[in-house]
């Protein structure tokens, strides 16, 4: 079966492709360019199109699918009524799927389940990354605040950190909040 993965995020498209590669008898095509999308899909002639739910080109592609009903291999918008649960799961995960009319139903479900798992895995990866970035930014703010204290009050690094921690405990706030407040105040006082 021929599967087209349409995603403007090349990273996510790769994650999905990697997941689907385990399936037997699958040819996978990635489409990450918005321009010329319909022509590319026409050329690929996929049995199934998997697309990120929020992809701005969905209306364009759906229009093409409706018009293509006149062609020999019409593409139906997925949403097979018999499998509401599977569709709800895919919408939840952020995948929309389009399947060629008459394509064997028993082959769709496992494929969609797999795609959903890959989408979810990618989303987790993204949130882990965002969290890691956040932690990094927090550490940088704390380091900067320490340097300000060290320079302006001639403190050693451990003492500067202890001062930040003490202020945080007294005010019932996080150390990073105190650090950011200090950086802002320092900036307002003309410090660099």
């Amino acid at each position, binding site marked *: 079966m021929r599967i087209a993965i349409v995603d403007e995020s090349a990273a996510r498209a790769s994650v999905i492709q990697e997941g689907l590669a385990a399936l037997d008898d699958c040819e996978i095509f990635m489409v990450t360019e918005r321009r010329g999308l319909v022509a590319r899909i026409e050329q690929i002639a996929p049995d199934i199109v998997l697309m990120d739910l*929020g992809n701005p080109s969905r209306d*364009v592609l759906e229009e093409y699918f409706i018009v293509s009903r006149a062609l020999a291999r019409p593409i139906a918008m997925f949403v097979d009524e018999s499998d509401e649960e599977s569709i709800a799961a895919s*919408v939840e995960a952020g995948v929309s799927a389009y399947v060629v009319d008459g394509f064997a139903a028993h082959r769709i479900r496992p494929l969609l389940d797999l795609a959903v798992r890959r989408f979810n895995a990618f989303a987790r990866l993204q949130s882990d990354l965002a969290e890691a970035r956040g932690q990094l930014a927090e550490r940088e703010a704390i380091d900067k605040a320490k340097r300000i204290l060290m320079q302006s009050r001639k403190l050693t690094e451990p003492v500067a950190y202890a001062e930040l921690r003490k202020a945080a405990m007294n005010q019932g706030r996080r150390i990073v909040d105190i650090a950011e407040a200090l950086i802002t105040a320092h900036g307002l006082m003309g410090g660099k």
Partner: protein
Amino acid sequence: MAQELTVGFLPLVDACLPILAREHGFAEAEGVSLTLVKDMSWATVLDRLLYGHSDAAHLVAPLAIATTLGRGRPAKPLAVPFVLGLNGNGITLRNDLADRVLPEGGLGHPAEVGARLAVVARERHDAGRTLRFGVVHRYSSHNYMLRYWLAACGVAPDRLVEITTVAPPFCADALEAGEVDAICVGEPWGSVAVERGVGRMVLATAQIWRRGVEKVLALREPVLEDRREPVEALIRALRRAGAHFVDPANWEANAAILARGEYLDGDATLIRRAISDRLLLARGGDEVHFADFMFQHREAANFPWVSQAEWLYTQMVRWDGLAFDAADAAKAARVFRPDVYRSALKGSGEPLPGASSKVEGSLEGPLAVTTQQGAITLSDNRFFDGAVFDPADLEGYIARQA
């Protein structure tokens, strides 16, 4: 305890009422905590609505009917208790085409522009370079208004010209790249193309049908029944947001709100033009005032007239190549829910029409209509070709437009 409602929307100026209902606290005052979810395609807005990510959606009106009738996907009954606005779209042509059909500039007359367009369309078709128009969705008022105009001017859609779908944020790109020769899109996206100098706006859809139904507030029918109380509260909040939106004193501030990143993420200057009915038709030109370019509030604009749903059904029959089906027509008519609108606003100061359906396109000037409460004067609501739509004779209307 506030009841929560989530409303999906696309970044367009006519998503203004739910946005302002939230921003100015009108929803909160009615006991509704409103969450707004932005998407980039109608397909996504609809998926979220059908699978419960949202309770209600800013939707192109014909799509609510197409979804109910199961066009393109399995049927799911939707309900429309509130019309979010009438018109507000422009037709923007690539400069070379605009120079052929409207050399004098300004907003043209639909019949004159159409007549000149017919000549160019024939030439281009015969030369194997068929003119291509972009609309935002197959089931959009843009598509139906454009087709109505073209067909009435002898420019047969799908034969003499092609009509294809382009997502609103990419309309200017598509025009610039020559993927389409013209676009019919809501603001601010037509103005974005004008600002970039890639096209000229030559017509407003309000010139094709002076009071054409555009976006609606759509819900799944069972959700409307389950959440009737907060939905009625939302309707009251949306009416108050509408009064605020059309007050010139608020244009500047409201344009700034709509322009924000979480909403339209656009240029407040362009948005202000649209909401004040002032349009820049060509780059470097002067703004032109065109009354009722957008129509969000007056004349009970938000009342879901059953006749509007029926007109949309006649266009669906026409352009999807369907046979008239009395059962489908009845289903389409039931999508619009004046009963819910009335129930929400009964006893308020808001005017409520006495009838639920009207003959569309029959008024040349102001006419006071009978009301259930308050006073309503409807004004010019004609189609540019003078045709009249009488909902009592759908089949006759369909037969005449074949």
